[in-house]
């Protein structure tokens, strides 16, 4: 499966499939839903519906600003728990394209206010009552993309680079 073309429609994604793009700093995700494109679109644009699934189960997210129109913007705070300590983390962005088959928005984690990803979500009608979501998050740089992928890991991106540095130093590479 290459990233430049939509995956073969005979492939099914009952569970999320992921690919870190090798050519540009992007993360792709595919997932099929038992719903129409219109329903999937509503679940992404209706403030109440979106709040029900975006945040951790039983906690959800506080949507502090929501204007799901082209040129509009959004902001929400999610609550998490780490080592039994509660913490809050927030995100914001702008809606660039809001169409029933396509949403394009910017995405910033407030912990890294200068970082911004461009997110494109397409809703493809599979014709059998199901709809395929394809989400692409294009980051500023490969480093940022890798940091995203490794975020919250005990062994993060810096340890990854360190492991490779060590191998280099040992003359293994």
């Amino acid at each position, binding site marked *: 499966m290459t990233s430049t073309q939509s995956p073969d429609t005979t492939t099914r994604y009952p569970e*999320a499939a992921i690919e870190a793009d090798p*050519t540009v700093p992007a993360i792709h995700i595919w997932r099929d*839903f*038992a*719903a129409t494109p219109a329903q999937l679109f*509503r679940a992404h644009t209706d403030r109440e519906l979106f709040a029900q699934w975006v945040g951790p189960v039983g906690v959800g997210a506080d949507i502090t600003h929501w204007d799901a129109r082209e040129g509009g913007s959004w902001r929400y705070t999610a609550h998490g728990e780490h080592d039994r300590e509660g913490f809050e983390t927030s995100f914001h962005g702008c809606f660039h394209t809001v169409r029933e088959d396509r949403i394009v928005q910017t995405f910033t984690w407030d912990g890294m206010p200068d970082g911004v990803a461009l997110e494109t979500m397409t809703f493809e009608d599979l014709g059998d009552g199901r709809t395929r*979501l394809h989400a692409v998050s294009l980051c500023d740089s*490969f480093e940022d993309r890798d940091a995203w992928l490794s975020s919250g890991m005990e062994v993060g991106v810096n340890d990854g680079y360190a492991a490779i540095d060590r191998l*280099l130093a040992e003359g*293994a590479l």
Partner: protein
Amino acid sequence: MTDQLSRVFAALADPTRRDMVARLAEADHTVGDLAEPYDVSLQAVSKHLKVLEDAGLVTRTREAQRRPVHLEAEVFDLMTKWIERYRRQAEERFSRLDAVLARMQDDENPTDRPSAQEGTAS
């Protein structure tokens, strides 16, 4: 160095190289061993190996005559762990979305059934 992880992702983007890595995860192999199942020239296999080496995924013993290829599991595991964890988090979110979509459909097509099942994806 900053681009090293991207090289890992790029190295793993090719199905032949992914297959090589899977075989190396079981045991070290010589280049000849590695090349055998593939319908490509030894030269092409060497090229694939060079990509895997540049990404830090495999190393080749300098001393031994046969110079077997060895998978650097540390680097490989890290990548796969990150990606899988990210995927799992997305899947958790999408499972919640499944439930929301199921509720939406119930609201749109009310039936005579009591809605005790509400909130569970069918």
